[in-house]
């Protein structure tokens, strides 16, 4: 396997409390990888460190490690990380509420070519061409995610499930290499969970690597090729879903010591 994302020895502490304690792992390119663990195990903090929203105290993370285009993510601010091809979503759903659904997608395409302010304002030919390309990309994603009828509505008017779809579509506007999804199906009805699953597989099939934090373990075990389990800021174990589901340490972390049934993990 060729890793697309490498996390090495990442440590993060908050006022003496260790949130991440030397996390190390590789994520295979073109895979769907799960990152699970009980509440407070450090999953979102790890996402924050990889995406630049928090500075880690020690350790590093790289995009395309070992390749010619390696990028050290932990030395960059969030905007540069997004532009390098690592996109993320947030545990608490975020869209631009007063922008139209279409404009949400267009706003998510800002990491395209950097035109000068004058070129942007005067709408020179390259700027217009780029805008046309992005509008056409937005139209494709609106159709793919069933949001085309709502394109002109403010995002605030969408249902929660539709906002989840919009959030995912926004992350795909500029064809990222790695997508960090923080609880992509939280609070979503079972029908939409299945739809989101199909979308995620399609996204992976396009070559985007997905790293998913999710408490719906059924989804994680169904979708992911490999799972990393965090507990108390440490990497407890990792492996294919079948192996992880039967690991007594995982059962103990989720359900307490003495738990035996892997079926209990099926959210």
């Amino acid at each position, binding site marked *: 396997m060729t890793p697309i994302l490498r996390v090495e020895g990442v440590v993060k502490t908050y006022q003496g409390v260790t949130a991440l304690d030397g996390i190390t792992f590789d994520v295979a390119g073109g895979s769907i990888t799960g990152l699970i663990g009980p509440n407070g195990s450090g999953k979102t903090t790890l996402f924050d460190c990889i995406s630049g929203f928090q500075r880690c105290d020690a350790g590093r993370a790289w995009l395309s490690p070992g390749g010619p285009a390696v990028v050290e993510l932990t030395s960059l601010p969030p*905007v540069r990380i*997004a532009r390098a091809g690592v996109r*993320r979503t947030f545990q608490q759903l975020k*869209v631009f509420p*007063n922008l*139209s659904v279409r404009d949400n997608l267009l706003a998510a395409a*800002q990491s395209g070519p950097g035109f000068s302010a004058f070129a942007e304002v005067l709408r020179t030919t390259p700027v217009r061409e780029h805008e046309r390309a992005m509008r056409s990309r937005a139209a494709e994603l609106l159709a793919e995610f069933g949001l085309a009828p709502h394109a002109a509505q403010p995002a605030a008017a969408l249902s929660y499930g539709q906002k989840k779809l919009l959030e995912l579509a926004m*992350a795909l506007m500029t064809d990222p290499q790695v997508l960090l999804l923080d609880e992509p199906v939280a609070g979503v009805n079972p029908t939409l969970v299945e739809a989101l699953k199909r979308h995620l597989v399609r996204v992976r099939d396009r070559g985007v690597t997905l790293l998913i934090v999710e408490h719906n373990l059924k989804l994680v075990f169904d979708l992911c090729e490999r799972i990393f389990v965090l507990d108390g800021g440490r990497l407890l174990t990792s492996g294919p879903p079948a192996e992880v589901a039967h690991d007594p340490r995982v059962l103990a972390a989720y359900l307490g010591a003495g738990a035996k049934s892997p079926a209990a993990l099926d959210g």
Partner: protein
Amino acid sequence: MSRTRAIAVVAALALALPLVLGSPYVLHIAIMTGFYVILAQSLNLILGYGGLLSLATPAFFGVGAYAAAILALRFGWDGAATLGLAALAGVATGIAIGFPSLRVSRHSFVIVTLSATLLLQLVANNWEDLTRGSLGLANIPAVRLFGVTVEARGGWYLLSLAVAGAVVLVTHLVVGSRFGRALVAARENEQLALAVGIDVFRTRLFAFSLSGAFAGLAGALYAYFITYIDPGVFGFSVSEALLIMVILGGSGTLSGPVAGAVVFTALPELLRIAPEVRSLLYGVILLLIVLYRPAGLATWLGRRRSAAAAPSA
């Protein structure tokens, strides 16, 4: 009526009415309204589209006014170049204030912009060799634009209207561009904006510089028109008037601050018919607008506010 036709009719009326009325008093108010339109759009860029409560507009305005006055009085410059340099001085002030203030939280931003403005007022008051302190700079000569000396009120009115129109047009182009979308996105959700690759700091700094250019230009025009300035141009009352114009006009819309500037420049003058209760009436009218048109006067103009224009929570 189509939107273009409506704009054309309003523009034609704006152009013709004060000239037809011909009264120097009405023309004076109309000229000042043009300056306020420029200043209101300057604040609107930051407050309406950027979602940041800036109290730095008087700083840009004052620096522009002093730059033009000093260039005219000390160096004998009276041409279009002084207007350009005053706008550039506004840009420089925008960058100087924006650089530290745009890195702090939204609440601290208000304080930093206010402090910077007060600091500049102190400089204007105390650097007497350059500014003559509280005595101010008087007898600022008439401005000459492309060989024409602008002295008569009719000429001033056309100049004020032309510059205000140009500023509204530039604002329209800016907020309709990818840059404008980024500015509004950062207002809506800063974290998400960063996560999708929007350089929030640079976007806001550019908006701040442009806001500085607009207000700096307005300051220069004001100095040439009134022919006298003092450190009062940096006063908080400028911010106060502009906040009323932008918020009650309709912040984050193109037409709202224009409507706000027109209404809230004219209203205090109209209320002169009842001098004893003028301030009271003005307050009551403000309250009524806040209660019945909280989104601003722009909602009366027959157009729904665009989604991009809604203010942030």
